[in-house]
């Protein structure tokens, strides 16, 4: 029961940090689930995060995996609700008054200002993720190739990401 409460608290808190995308919450996600609560190791968290990029729907469904690892199906359900309910209610409420906010003179300032901050938070998340994911030249090469492929083409990201996994297996077989 205490674990379910912890799961609810952690993921409700994390959800409020996802300004500009799930990656903005990555640094705190790592601190809380790995360092504070020891629910998963950093590599495990990275693996779930990356699998979550392959799953359909919202890309942070890995919170459900962590919930399930900690407390089974109830843990998965609590993580899901905690991660989507608080921001959901906020979005619902703001969505209803948005037409009135449309002419508010501070609105462009808030939108542009928070835009820069969210890019900064995503960059921080990418740096922290890179420390775990790029543990050698091969992994750096994979990340760079996928980066340029996705930047220059319209290919579905699922293909190069799965291919990256296969390259990882190939390297394991050869080395």
């Amino acid at each position, binding site marked *: 029961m205490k674990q379910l409460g912890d799961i609810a608290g952690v993921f409700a808190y994390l959800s409020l940090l996802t300004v500009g995308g799930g990656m903005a919450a990555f640094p705190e996600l790592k601190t809380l689930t790995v360092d504070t609560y020891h629910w998963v190791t950093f590599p495990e968290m990275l693996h779930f*995060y990356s699998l979550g990029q392959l799953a359909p729907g919202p890309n942070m469904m890995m919170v459900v995996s962590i919930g399930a690892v900690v407390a089974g199906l109830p843990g998965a359900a609590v993580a899901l609700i905690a991660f989507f309910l608080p921001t959901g209610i906020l979005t619902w409420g703001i*969505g209803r008054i948005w037409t009135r906010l449309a002419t508010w003179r501070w609105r462009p300032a808030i939108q542009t200002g928070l835009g820069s*901050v969210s890019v*900064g938070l995503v*960059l921080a998340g*990418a740096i922290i993720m890179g420390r775990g994911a790029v543990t050698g030249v091969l992994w750096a090469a994979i990340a760079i190739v996928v980066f340029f492929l996705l*930047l220059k083409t319209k290919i579905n990201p699922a293909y190069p990401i799965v291919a990256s996994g296969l390259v990882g297996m190939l390297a394991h077989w050869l080395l």
Partner: protein
Amino acid sequence: MNEASSSAEARPSLGRIFWVFLVMGATSLGGGVVGYLRTGLVVRNNWLDDVTFVELLSISQTLPGLNATNMSILVGDRLRGAWGAILATVGMCLPGATLMTAAAYAYNIGGDDPWSKAFLHGIAAGALGLIVVVMVQLGSRVLKGFADYVIVLATAAAVAFFHVQVPYALIAAGIVAIWWHRPREGKVHKPHNEPVGERHHE
């Protein structure tokens, strides 16, 4: 323009809303939910026009929460009020949540195998490439002046190198950035460029 008939078209049943979002939640593989949302909502079902879609997307991106679920809430609420919002969100989340629950159990069984570790480490490197692309594309749309880049680097350095907790960084950098872009007399602010043809993280 007949108001009654156009609004009747725009009010699908709750079951229909749930089904359409469930299909999008199940088929939007590869992190491009926004593209799937546009196809499902604007093109196939004609529930929104493109202008409204971009407007709702800009609300979704400004508020905390993921684009996919924020869009589900905003669109569901427009179509059918609170229940529409709830059913759209549940439909959007259900397939991915089921899969990732299954993934957790599978990981328990096979996660320690060196072959699956090698595979998972590979996809982590690939996913990092995806995240950096999404960041570059978000940045090219959002960042306009030198000051914006300073905000980005300061926020990132504070969190990644000086271990500042995200909420403090968010609030401090947010206040500075919003103040920098504060409304001034005689200066017309333009909102973000429309996110056309861009990869989205949700």
